[in-house]
């Protein structure tokens, strides 16, 4: 009996140790290859929309993937290499098909009373394809008689900060080989450099935190604004300054930048959010995202100053906070 009890205790201790020391994995950013606007326009995959007399070009990605086999070959090869690096990329083509199917399916879902799913306009906007890292791909095939040469430009852009993470340009060999072979050669030529650029970005993220953007606004009709004065640690300070102090204390190494401030709007860019942190609800360490990170600020505003805040989250790195109401 004593032996069984001892084994049980040892096992329980080992489980405890495993849970305590298990490293919490950070949230994996989603990556998507998107044909560049320049490529879409060159190849006629766009439509023109008249907005207040100004003609705006809208890219038609669905048509591009349906009608151009070259872009599909390039995306497939890049997807293959990224999967081999244990970092599969999301397919824009499949995401668009998925969105169309979901829209049709959700429209048909009703309960027994005939009520359909409640959906706000923000929900509809949030459904769009939102990768965390956009791989902007441009390529051009130059023909010299029977020979062909592919020139390419691949840029990885952080979807929230707009920062260029990795950029690669180059040309394939000038050859009469089939175009698919040249496209594959181009991908093989730049992928090592490109992956190295991504690795640098991830190393930076783990050292200094993920970059997010926070916008703060005020609902029309709310009586307070960012210049309203409150008491803070025995002093009187503007709400905007108190919010600034929160970012100073909570961003990794106090790294953030207040891009603009008025009485009704504050924009914080390059806010370095830690990759992991304690979830205030569960009390356990978990992967951090913008929603969890900013909940500390909304809690402080509500608990200390009675200011209700509505949160709108866009992906892992963009938050809109509107003060005045839930």
């Amino acid at each position: 009996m004593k032996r069984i009890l001892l084994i049980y205790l040892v096992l329980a201790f080992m489980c405890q140790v495993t849970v305590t020391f298990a490293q919490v994995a950070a949230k994996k950013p989603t990556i998507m290859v998107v044909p560049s606007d320049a490529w879409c326009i060159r190849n006629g995959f766009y439509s023109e929309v008249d907005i207040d007399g100004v003609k705006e070009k809208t890219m038609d990605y669905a048509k591009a993937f349906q009608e151009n086999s070259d872009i599909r070959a390039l995306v497939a090869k890049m997807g293959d290499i990224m999967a081999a690096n244990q970092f599969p990329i999301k397919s824009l083509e499949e995401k668009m098909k998925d969105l169309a199917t979901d829209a049709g399916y959700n429209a048909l879902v009703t309960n027994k009373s005939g009520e359909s799913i409640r959906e706000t306009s923000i929900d509809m906007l949030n459904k769009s394809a939102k990768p965390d890292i956009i791989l902007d791909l441009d390529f051009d095939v130059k023909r010299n008689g029977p020979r062909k040469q592919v020139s390419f430009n691949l840029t990885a852009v952080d979807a929230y900060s707009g920062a260029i993470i990795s950029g690669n340009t180059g040309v394939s060999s000038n050859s009469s080989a089939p175009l698919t072979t040249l496209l594959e050669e181009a991908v093989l030529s730049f992928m090592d450099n490109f992956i190295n650029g991504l690795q640098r970005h991830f190393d930076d993220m783990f050292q200094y935190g993920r970059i997010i953007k926070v916008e703060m606004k005020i609902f029309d009709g709310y009586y307070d604004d960012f210049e309203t004065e409150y008491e803070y640690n025995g002093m009187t300070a503007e709400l905007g300054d108190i919010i600034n102090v929160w970012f100073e204390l909570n961003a990794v190494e106090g790294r953030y930048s207040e891009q603009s401030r008025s009485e009704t709007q504050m924009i914080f860019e390059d806010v370095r959010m830690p990759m992991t942190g304690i979830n205030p609800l569960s009390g356990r360490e978990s992967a951090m995202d913008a929603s969890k990170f900013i909940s500390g600020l909304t809690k402080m505003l509500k608990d200390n100053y009675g200011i209700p805040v509505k949160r709108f989250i866009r992906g892992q790195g963009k938050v809109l906070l509107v003060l005045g109401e839930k």
Partner: protein
Amino acid sequence: MNRIITFLLVLLISVPVAFSQSRKERKALFESMQNFEVETIKVGTDGTKFIKVWGYGRKVDDAIVQAKKNAVYACIFRGLPANTEANATPPLCTDPNGYMNNQEYFDNFFETAGPYIDFVNVTTDGVPSGEDRLKVKKGYKVALYVQVMHENLKRKLQADRIIKSLSSGF
């Protein structure tokens, strides 16, 4: 007058010392493992790099062995230069002190016929000849056209926790 004589004496002694140091440095450089030439020939097939690499040795066989080691060493620590048809390949180990920090691992890895040999395919049979085989003062300098199994090499270093994978931490 005495001062001038002292100054000239110091100068006379220090000049040969300075030159002998540079000779030593040149010798160390020649014998250093990092002292080799490597060039990218063209984009290799999936997961491989096709390069031309040089090696030094007292005999031709020694130089061939050294060239194979150099090919793998270049992929891990130096990276491969670009040419008109292929982009540059960055080194697999981006830590500048990568060898020093894993001295025992790499000393064993680069032992003659050690683990490095699994990642090199020689694309030509036989002993290099013509301009790819040069007689130098203390032996031979030979060039090999080799295919390095770059992707397999990366997997091996990741599995042995020498370098990080792209997804580590996520």
